[in-house]
């Protein structure tokens, strides 16, 4: 069964390491849904959080291939593991000529924040599990979403 998988990849912070991982997935026929990375508290170590699709066997194989890269320290597939907070961040630009109070109500309910507000639109900063972001975007649709951007999965162990 093809499923969404979130891989936490710890790598040595070396030139080209992100290109290596992205290239490896594309060369073996995988699509990357999201990829996000930043150095850890140790500047020599970089953490990449990657979301891709595949069967369990396929993901096991691609994890092994990523692990095989010289710069890879660790690969963990957290999709079916307990004890991880998987979050996303989103910035959403919503049309706000009408319905502004309702929008702001929903912002409060979702624990989101207003980043900017003009006559024409509100820019909202929201974080949380994927389902929460999906739901919020769904609720904003009737007002008119001008633009949005999501970070993709980032995760931390509980």
């Amino acid at each position: 069964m093809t499923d969404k998988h979130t891989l936490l990849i710890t790598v040595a912070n070396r030139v080209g390491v992100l290109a290596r991982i992205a290239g490896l997935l594309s060369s073996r026929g995988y699509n990357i849904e999201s990829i996000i990375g930043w150095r850890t508290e140790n500047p020599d170590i970089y953490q990449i959080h990657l979301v891709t699709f595949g069967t369990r066997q396929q993901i096991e194989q691609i994890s092994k291939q990523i692990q095989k890269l010289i710069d890879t320290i660790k690969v963990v597939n957290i999709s079916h593991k307990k004890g991880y907070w998987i979050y996303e961040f989103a910035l959403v630009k919503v049309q706000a000529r009408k319905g502004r109070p309702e929008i702001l109500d929903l912002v409060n309910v979702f624990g989101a924040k207003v980043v900017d507000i003009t006559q024409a639109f509100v820019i909202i900063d929201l974080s949380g599990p994927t389902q929460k972001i999906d739901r919020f975007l769904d609720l904003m649709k009737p007002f008119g979403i001008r633009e949005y951007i999501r970070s993709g999965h980032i995760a931390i162990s509980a």
Partner: protein
Amino acid sequence: MTGAEILIDALKKEGVDIVFGYPGGVVLSIFDVLFKTPEIRLVLTRHEQAAAHAADGYARATGRTGVCLVTSGPGATNTITGLANAKLDSVPMVVISGQVKTTVIGSDAFQETDMAGLTRPICKHSYLVQTVESLPQIIRNSFHIARTGRPGPVAVDLPADIAMASLETYVYPEGPDLASYQPPDRGNSNQIRKLAAAVRNAARPVVLAGGGIIGADASTLLMRFIEKTNIPAAATLMGLGSVPDDHELFLGMAGMHGRVSANNALMECDLLIGMGTRFEDRVTGDLNTFAAKAVIAHVDIDPSEIGKNLRTHIPIVGDVRSVLTDLIEAVDPRPAGDWNRLVGEWSAAHPLAYDQDSEGEILPQYVIDRINHWAPGNTIIATDVGQHQMWSALFIRHRRPRAFLSSGGMGTMGFGLPAAMGASLGCPGRPVVVISGDGSIQMNIQELATCTLNRIPVKIVVLNNSCLGMVRQWQELFYNKIFSKTCLKERPECRSTCSGHRPDCPNVFWPDFVRVAEANGVAAFRATRVSEVDDVLRRGFAVDGPALMEFRVKKIENVFPMVPGGKPINHILLGEAP
């Protein structure tokens, strides 16, 4: 010291005695240092692809890391085939390419190409050196990566300004600084016990020996294991030589052109122990039926190979040498039984054979068989790719490891001659023979000059059937005998009179290999009749230096046994078209 001096000193510290290379703008400073370094022999090939294959052949024959040095741009890209070839066959190699100055990288400067980027998917690792300070550690790491774990090629891209920059204090690092790279060593002892138990319980066990056995120099251990347990062993193309082919437990090569005995054993076994093999499609055929009744044990140093192609019940990740050492301890001796008798019957019922009519056309199998006679026992055989490669795999007597050099994974035509050069230079005093075809040999024929001028005494056998034989065979069997572009004598006017391979073709063989060889100072001989074969081989092998022996062989001759691609490997064609 300059970057160039550091590089060469590092190569010396790594024990490099030969570098295959080709100079150019951005590597002049390095060639300048090499000129003053008598400890390292610099061999100028006539094409960078040949330099890469020569380093590869050197590595396969000696077990040491092959080194290649080329310039940026086209020099670098010409090594790409060689790198990909070495990657697929797990050959330790370091290719150093020059790069434009760091100050102009990214500006599409003259002969600039992103070598680190190009090589990423086809190398075990690649480096772009960005500071002279990092150079010593990068070279140390490169050699460590190339030869440890699953061996493979490493590409190092070195910008011209870094080769010329100076470093005041230089110490060659004692070890790599690769915390993230920890290749496996010993196999898990529980898993090894599990495999020993499986051996105890198996009625029909078989070993499949891959190139990993050769690469790990584990042949002797493998033989001790099979002799203690009386388990018959088949080999992949890359594993040929791991068990001598006159050994009573050896079943021959398995796979698409494998022996009936080997393929039947793999299909009928109840325990399959794959060692240093990746169960590639040319070996397994249809995966759903391959060894379907068997418990599969897979020993490999690369965890990503386990379960990649074939379901695995007993995975063992580790160095096959150490796994075999532990396994020999763990298994009980096992007498030969019914299974050994059965596989013996298969071997006896399907001997490799050919029927050479002494008045007829020369059969390529016959020439290869006669090479066994004329080549001394310690000869290293290199092949190109095609029918001659498979006939060599089948008919050459494989007596020892690292003596059969063939492009397995990539199937690179043009590999044979440069690989033989590398092997010859790496193993001075040992005879080296290239078996090639008229198609393959032309893909690196410029290296005849390298052989003559560097006194590399390789013996080149060209089995000339005036066509691309293996492709022709596939066209005959699977493409309704539409022989599209497989005749190497074809001219534009042929189209109206010939559909590919007319027996009475009036065109001359092309090129005249004897003249090509002689133009390059290589002694050359030609046999067109069966009665001349032995004489040509005798004269060729007697030459003190390189020699080319051309055999005009039968054109319409197919490689059998053959399993059509994707079919179960016991669906074997033994002679006739389906």
